[in-house]
């Protein structure tokens, strides 16, 4: 069992603190007066938190390349799909009635 990169309990605590700080940061970002554009800050912060958890707690840093590819596949497919769907919604001219 590859226990080499097994971080000690301090490591777990360190990551926990980073996550709490990032969460606080995104809460603060919500108070910026930029209306609905806060997502430009809150989602990248959420992505960073997710990457941190996947790398450390889910031990992706210490696993084989195949496992990392599998881990990224779901997110990559989702973003690819979002991008292609948005080509429709960002360019749709006709009128919507609420």
């Amino acid at each position, binding site marked *: 069992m590859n226990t080499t990169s097994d971080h000690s309990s301090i490591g777990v605590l360190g990551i926990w603190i980073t996550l709490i700080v990032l969460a606080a940061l995104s809460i603060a970002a919500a108070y910026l007066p930029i209306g609905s554009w806060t997502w430009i800050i809150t989602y990248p912060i959420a992505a960073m938190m997710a990457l941190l958890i996947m790398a450390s707690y889910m031990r992706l840093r210490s696993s084989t390349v*195949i496992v990392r590819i599998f881990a990224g*596949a*779901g997110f990559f*497919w989702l973003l*690819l*799909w979002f991008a*292609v*769907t948005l*080509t*429709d*919604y960002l*360019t*749709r*001219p*006709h009128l*919507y*009635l*609420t």
Partner: protein
Amino acid sequence: MSTVAAQPASYLTAAATVRSWLVTRDHKLIAILFTISITAFFFVGGAAATVIRLELATPAGDLVSSETYNKLFSMHGIIMVWFFLIPSIPATLGNFLLPLMIGARELAFPRINLASWYLYTAGGLFTVATLLLGSVDTGWTFYTPYSSLFTNTSVVLALTAVFVVGFSSILTGLNFIVTVHTMRTPGMTWMRLPLFVWAMYATSIIMVLATPVLSMVLVLVAAERLFGVGVFDPRLGGDPVLFQHLFWFYSHPAVYIMILPAFGVVSEIITCFSRKRIFGYPYMVYAIVAFTSLSFVVWGHHMFVSGESMYASIVFSILSYLVAVPSAIKVFNWTATLYKGSISFEAPMLYALGFVGLFLNGGLTGLFVAAVALDVHLTDTYFVIAHFHYIMVGGSVMAFLGGIHFWWPKVTGRMYSEWIAQASAILMFFGFNLTFFPQYLLGYLGMPRRYHEYLPDYQVLNVLSSAGASILAVAYLMPLFYLTWSLFYGRAAGANPWRATGLEWRSASPPPEHNFEQTPTVDEAPYAYTSEDRQAHSSQARET
């Protein structure tokens, strides 16, 4: 016919009691369980199709009422797509052959494999319940707002059925991916995998990445029916076209789930019966990989007239043309494989050649509906019905039957009777063409799909199509009889009746419980047919 001597110990002898079948973890028994279940559902869906074709023989809606007709084509769609086509090759031939072809003793997660069959059966029971409780009349596409706000048929039950059976294909896909990654026999590198295994691997990736999207869309529709309002609800400013985006994001890759396994089967059959290595093996693999990735970004061609923006339609059109290129590569390579072969025309080969012909026609008509300007006229008409039936029935079902005949000796240890099988294949080819070719013309002439009645002008072509359907029905029933007959009276087939080169032919037929006495190793590319073997194979036929 002399009854065959008692079979040597095999995986079948260990499955004497019913209980041993229901709790088995042997991928071969689970494959047979799947084969029985999907054959049953194929004939239920086929019955619905028969009544539809009978109804459409006359312009007026005089055989069944409109509600019943709408329920018929909905059930035909739901059963054929989710309960026959999607599991047809992966869950039957894939389950049985994947471990054998890569030299493994079993799939990675046998218990999950059995769970996959139980989920399929649970989905099946929900579908039967839907049938009994007044069926559903939304079509297999469940378009909102009709499916969510305007119909009172048992939609939620049908959605649950498809939700549950979706998990069955996710688990099958998961099992195949992990097996191919971790359990290949020594020497079996990625570029020495048989193309059937590549096809299973690619299909599994699509199953795993696309099916969750379908399940959640159906949950959203069910939630909209329960809450009364929802994200697709136009009264709230929701967008019905959003449902189509989410639905077709699954449903286009789903049609590649249906056709990719057929490519794998046909590559195996054509190489064996022309005694020749596949032409351009790496290009066939690149084509499969290209299919897997491109199949996820082309779904918009189902929505060219649905209110999608002009720019998005053009983007989806160019992507749809890109995804058509791998199909062309594969057809060219199959044809090139026949060059300088020693070709014999047993039933599997007839099915495979029939597949290449019909799939070529289906693929080329795909170019018509991928061209946005033409699709405005052709979409939602019988042209589209003919196009996808050419690919699904002409392609997938022919390849499935070809695969069943090709590996029948390996699965059951017995040979089927050759001439009846050849007759049924040829009858099916002509019955199929007579059924679906007139529908191209109907489509161009503007007969919309899902029409219970139509203008008298269309009657001539519809009668032709219904006549073809009756021939097709007979051709589908024939294998049921002669294959069952061969189970009891077929002559014993040796380990390798077709003298094919796959690993699965190196173990006995039917194979022992753990597939191989000792794990085979691989040291060369697949389909290692040599030209001397071809000369001998051909000259041997000349003497006899």
